């Protein structure tokens, strides 16, 4: 499902990411844990095809994304990868439902209202479909972001610090929700975080250390 070999990325000859071997199987969930500045966000961006590695290969669903053009990467990412960030980046002009549908449209999937409905239901957002994001609580807004990351049934969900801004209880809820939803939709989940509370919550853990 995800297979990384001899991945290197750096600026001005200084490596930021150097990972020899990394795999994730379908429906598995993994936490990549490391301190700030260890290059874990860069690693996530590389996996999403938002950055080009200096060397090495990244295979997602047996496609070598490092060989893809910019436009091909955009398409591939839209169709097969869902992303959740600490900051949610919901479109303020669109309603909750439109925000979720946007991911379907960008992935060139036909609009699937029942899929949106069931996600809203599952994430406790039923009845909020017509609301604008700024009317929602932080927790509700994050659940909208999770729904948006899953609505087009991606094979891989990448989450960057989804819990860092939340208190213990909410962090636990958010992580459980993310894991359960990804499982329910058949996606692998990779969470990148420095938040130690994530330890022990997901199937696998991968430690990253800053490169000297």
């Amino acid at each position: 499902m995800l297979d990384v070999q001899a991945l290197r990325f750096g600026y001005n000859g200084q490596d930021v990411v150097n990972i020899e071997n990394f795999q994730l199987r379908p429906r598995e969930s993994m936490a990549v844990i490391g301190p700030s500045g260890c290059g874990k966000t860069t690693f996530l961006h590389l996996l999403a095809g938002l950055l080009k590695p200096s060397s090495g290969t990244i295979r997602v669903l047996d496609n070598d994304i490092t060989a893809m053009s910019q436009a091909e990467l955009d398409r591939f990412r839209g169709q097969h990868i869902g992303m959740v960030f600490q900051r949610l980046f919901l479109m303020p002009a669109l309603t909750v439902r439109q925000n979720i549908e946007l991911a379907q449209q960008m992935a060139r999937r036909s609009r699937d209202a029942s899929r949106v409905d069931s996600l809203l239901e599952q994430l406790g957002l039923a009845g909020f479909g017509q609301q604008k994001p700024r009317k929602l609580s932080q927790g509700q807004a994050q659940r909208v972001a999770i729904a948006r990351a899953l609505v087009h049934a991606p094979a891989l969900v990448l989450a960057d610090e989804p819990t860092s801004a939340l208190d213990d209880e909410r962090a636990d809820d958010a992580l459980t929700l993310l894991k359960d939803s990804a499982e329910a939709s058949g996606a692998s989940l990779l969470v990148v975080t420095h938040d130690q509370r994530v330890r022990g919550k997901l199937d696998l853990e991968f430690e990253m250390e800053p490169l000297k």
Partner: protein
Amino acid sequence: MTWLRLALANLTLSPLTTLVNVLLMGLGTASIVLLLLAGVQLTETMSRDAKGVDLVLGAQGSPVQLILSAVYHADVPPGNIKLADAERWADDSRVSAAVPVSLGDSFRGFRIVGTTHQYAELYNADLASGKMWDESMEAVVGAAIAESGALALGSTFAGAHGLVEGGHSHDEQLYSVVGVLAPTGSVVDRLVLTSLESVWELHGQEAHAHEDHEDDHEGEHDAHEDEHDAHEDDHENKHDAHEEEHEGHEEHDAHEHEAHEDEHESHADEHADHEDGHEDEHEAHEDEHEPHEDEHEGHEDEHVGHEDEHGDDEEHRDHEHAEDADEHDHDSDVAYREDIEVTAMLMSYATPMAATTLPLEINAEGSLQAAAPAMEIARILQLVGVGMTALGAFAWVLVVTAALSIFAALYGSLRARRGELAMLRCLGATRYELLIYLIVEGFLMTIFGVSLGVIVGHIVMELVGLWLADTRGISMTGWTWVADEALLIIGLFCVGVVSAIIPAIQAYRTDVATALVEG
């Protein structure tokens, strides 16, 4: 569709900014549309009113004034000319048609034109009801006058002296409306047409009414006499200036003026070579009778008798004069003399070649002025054009301001939207789609502004048109399209795209990884 919806939704996010941009663009567009519509229609109206009139013969003075008064009925005439002089040119082989007009009176601001039936034909004005005039003091009115309710078939009215409301009224003799013309969209719609005789008849009387004044001004009169020719233009201008203020005096001045002209004419005639011996004799008679003319009513009969003697002369004149003769049999109070005057003679060329020679010949002779409407229209439009250009430039300043404002709004929002744009990339949008997205957003404001402007421009044009029709008799409408509008709209859309292009390129260049981290 997705992008259009997203762009539309974004515009509602900051409604005030969007509103200001749309209004600015709308204001600029409306101004340009208004100028375009007005410019084209003004040219069209002026050309339509001058259709069939290649050359206007009139008194010397400003050619623009002559054309404005004789063709457009928008100014006071520069003075009168002797019909006999004008007809010498009307008989020229290069002239296919010549229509005399006699101006000076009006009814409730509608001008009364003494002319021949040919005048209506010139504008293809058919009768909507009634008949054309046969008798003196019968009038045919234009469609707009009938529509305004001022006059209808069968009404009688008194012509007022002068071309604006409030002049001395010729209550002694009333016109009766015998016909109403169908609408033509030209100046005829707002004119009262009548025979030349009607106007002469009233003015003959008018001269007597002012008899006493004439004596009072005799001295002044003499003093002016010598200067008359040299200062013709000055005189003309002063004359105009006084005209608006002293309607009563105007008549009076005009008559004095005419008297001078007559004298000059007769001197000129003495020196001039005449092919027609008859005419010489004729002029001589005129001179003889001149001094009596304005003084005693009793002498009128003498003149009439004199006219009869010259019955033979009348025969080689056109049809109208035969009518004059008939008319005069019916009404012996009116003097028909060889020095009868008209304001101008509208002429059509028999051949286009006439345009190169005829006006020059007429003007070279000196006593008359020949002015070509086409040339004077061009001159007027050139003058109006300066104002139009200035207004147009101002309107384009508004458009450019609108474009800058749209640019500023988009560019300013980019910083706040960097994360949003990066998220769209994460969701699968390509860089090109972000480029299009921003252009669409800017373009939407332009489209709304331009649409608003086009609609408002046409509505305002229509309102101005209604006002002009009511007050100036100029027919303009907002319910029309001009070809340049299509060009304008395309041009404005280009402006809209240009205003969005820099923000769009910024969006295209968004570094997703950085934007996601920094927001």
